[in-house]
């Protein structure tokens, strides 16, 4: 110890790089001498000890003292759980220690050589086709059960929602925390149009998209002047308003009970009734009637819708509109100066993003045959936004990967009930801290001089407002 590691009196240190406090902040700041290397183990142990102390303070009240309603229905009583606290504190200590030792002992990171980058790039190019091939082949792979197909449908729904939101957040740079509102508009549009007017799914699908786009413009118009966090909060408020209206407008939406008995889609007029019979899918193609047909059909339907979203996004990026979105994201003032109509550009981004949300909503309604406001809470918006940001804003592949990992991982821990949501939130924090630019942190510019190449996500002004 060379006398630099000043022990902190009680409490917790505020900077763990060992630099002593500047004191009372009076006088001239001292010239900081470069701190000499410390024995890593002692430092790591001390730091982990402090972390454990903090954890002790955090977990004693909330974990150690569990309040329960008494058996007689009377007041609350306390049940102590000291072993749980001890386990958690031990885990925090061990985790922090391991992290510290890893930080100080790991080998210097080698600078990425050109060959390695090229290799990674080639592997990266392969990922998308392989994923697509896997997605197309999934229903016919051996060992694919009904459960796997249902999970695939769920993941693809989120992929589609992520890609839809990516238009708004990733391309146009408008932070939308109320995207689930358009999902809800799509779902309720189809539910209401089919149950009251009796329109079929294939007529309602574009209608649901149009209605959602209309709402996108309607909600987008007032917020044209807002940016960044303010925009996020206002869109959150819109999302909540729509949900509260759905709950309370009982005569139209059925209130909290929702709408049930929503018709299932048909395959060019052929129904998927389980019993077969004339006019059904299995009868027409001479197959054994099976409920799996409908699931497979729904799977391909959402795959097609998701790919449509992706295709439209990729095409739009090459057109003036998509380029205007990206320019708007980078610098709104420069955009105005160059004569881009900012109002129209923002509104089209809201409208097109909302339209795909509406499509996904209509699909959701027909798959569940039931919609209720419970499916459209703020947490859904947060999950979709998390998928987009964790995957890497603006990166189509990243969004798909993030949806696969987050939703697939989420479902894999289905038995853990409350714990999995805890893990989901923790994963959001950890991924953000680990890779703030998302899992795929390179971007491909829409236009480049000469050869197209990937650039770092840090060079892109996403999410500025």
């Amino acid at each position: 110890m060379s006398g630099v590691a000043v022990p902190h009196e009680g409490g917790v240190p505020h900077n763990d790089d060992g630099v002593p406090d500047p004191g009372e902040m009076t006088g001239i700041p001292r010239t900081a001498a470069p701190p000499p290397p410390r024995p890593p183990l002692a430092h790591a142990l001390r730091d982990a000890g402090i972390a454990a102390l903090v954890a002790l303070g955090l977990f004693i009240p909330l974990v150690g003292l569990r309040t329960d309603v008494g058996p007689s229905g009377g007041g609350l009583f306390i049940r102590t759980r000291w072993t749980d606290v001890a386990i958690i504190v031990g885990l925090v200590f061990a985790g922090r220690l391991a992290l510290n030792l890893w930080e100080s002992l790991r080998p210097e990171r080698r600078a990425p050589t050109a060959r390695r980058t090229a290799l990674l790039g080639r592997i990266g190019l392969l990922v998308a086709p392989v994923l697509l091939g896997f997605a197309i082949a999934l229903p016919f792979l051996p060992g694919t059960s009904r459960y796997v197909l249902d999970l695939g449908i769920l993941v693809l729904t989120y992929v589609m929602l992520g890609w839809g939101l990516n238009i708004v957040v990733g391309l146009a740079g408008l932070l939308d925390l109320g995207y689930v509102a358009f999902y809800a508009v799509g779902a309720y549009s189809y539910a209401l149009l089919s149950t009251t007017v009796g329109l079929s799914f294939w007529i309602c699908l574009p209608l649901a998209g149009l209605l959602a786009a209309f709402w996108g413009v309607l909600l987008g118009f007032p917020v044209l002047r807002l940016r960044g966090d303010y925009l996020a909060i206002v869109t959150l408020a819109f999302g909540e308003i729509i949900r509260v209206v759905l709950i309370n407008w009982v005569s139209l939406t059925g209130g909290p009970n929702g709408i049930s008995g929503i018709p299932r889609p048909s395959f060019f007029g052929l129904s998927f009734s389980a019993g077969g019979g004339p006019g059904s899918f299995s009868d027409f193609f001479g197959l054994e009637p099976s409920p799996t047909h409908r699931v497979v059909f729904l799977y391909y339907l959402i795959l097609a819708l998701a790919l449509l979203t992706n295709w439209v996004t990729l095409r739009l990026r090459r057109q003036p509109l998509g380029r205007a979105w990206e320019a708007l994201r980078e610098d709104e003032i420069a955009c105005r100066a160059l004569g881009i109509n900012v109002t129209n550009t923002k509104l089209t981004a809201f409208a097109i993003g909302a339209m795909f949300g509406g499509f996904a909503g209509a699909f959701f309604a027909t798959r569940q045959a039931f919609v209720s406001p419970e499916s459209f809470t703020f947490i859904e918006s947060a999950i979709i936004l998390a998928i987009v940001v964790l995957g890497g804003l603006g990166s189509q592949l990243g969004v798909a990967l993030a949806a696969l990992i987050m939703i697939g991982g989420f479902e894999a821990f289905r038995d853990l009930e409350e714990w999995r949501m805890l893990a989901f939130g923790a994963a959001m924090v950890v991924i953000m801290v680990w890779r703030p630019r998302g899992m795929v942190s390179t971007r491909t510019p829409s236009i480049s001089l000469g050869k197209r190449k990937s650039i770092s996500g840090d060079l892109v002004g996403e999410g500025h407002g």
Partner: protein
Amino acid sequence: MAYALQQLINGVALGMIYGLIAVGYTMVYGIIGMINFAHGDIFMVGAFISLISFVLISSGGWAAGPGAILLVLLVSMAVTALYGWSVERVAYRPLRGSFRLAPLISAIGMSIVLQNYVQVAQGARVKPMESIVTGGVELWHGNGFAVSISTMQAMIVIVTLVVLAVFTWLVTRTPLGRAMRACEQDRKMAGLLGIDTDRTISITFVIGAALAAVAGTMYLLRYGVIDFYIGFLAGVKAFTAAVLGGIGSLPGAVLGGLLIGLIETFWSAYFSVQYKDVATFAILVITLIFMPTGLLGRAEVEKV
């Protein structure tokens, strides 16, 4: 008239709670320019810590008097402040200087973590607590309607005012407050002048969390039931209050909280209870669209 007066009293008491939470939002926004999405859940944690402390005290055979309430308040403030500090340390500090969305996503993640952590640790059922502060004073009797102010409401107002007075003194008169205001104006320059900005930001989170703990304790005493989900709505409303008052402005946050409390109470009393949240959200939207700087905020000048 009597009815309106009663609603005024109810609204002020509710608004004080919102104001206390809103101060936390506005401070953090002022100093690092991010919406601390987990702040509503910090408020919820504060309410839970108070609940646990109260149960602990009553099972220890203590009578729940003013001394007990004060003790609970202090315990709750201390532990919740530790939570606020840890959240900043774990989820926000590594992302400082990162791009803008990263801390917001991290904060949303932290909010989900806190909610589900409390749900796992304390159970999903609502936690009832018998009221400790009872009684009240009838102020005025007119047209068969009695206007009264309960001891609880009086206590909320007094405690809030005392806490805010201490807080105002802290921000305006102490070296710490000076450092906070300096960081708010220009973090880089403050750092160059020898202010430990990381520590100042940590302390900001600690103070915000302690104020949220006071709000949580008051909420628990006033309503008597809490669950792990109370943080979301209270958080959004308090944020609305901060925006309405002008984000970054501390008196604005309290003023905004009072206004939101009054609007919500009057809306529930005269229009419909179901749509009271819509009323609050609508105010948020209208404020931001027509008056983005809020009532007491400064206009932001953008330099190109």
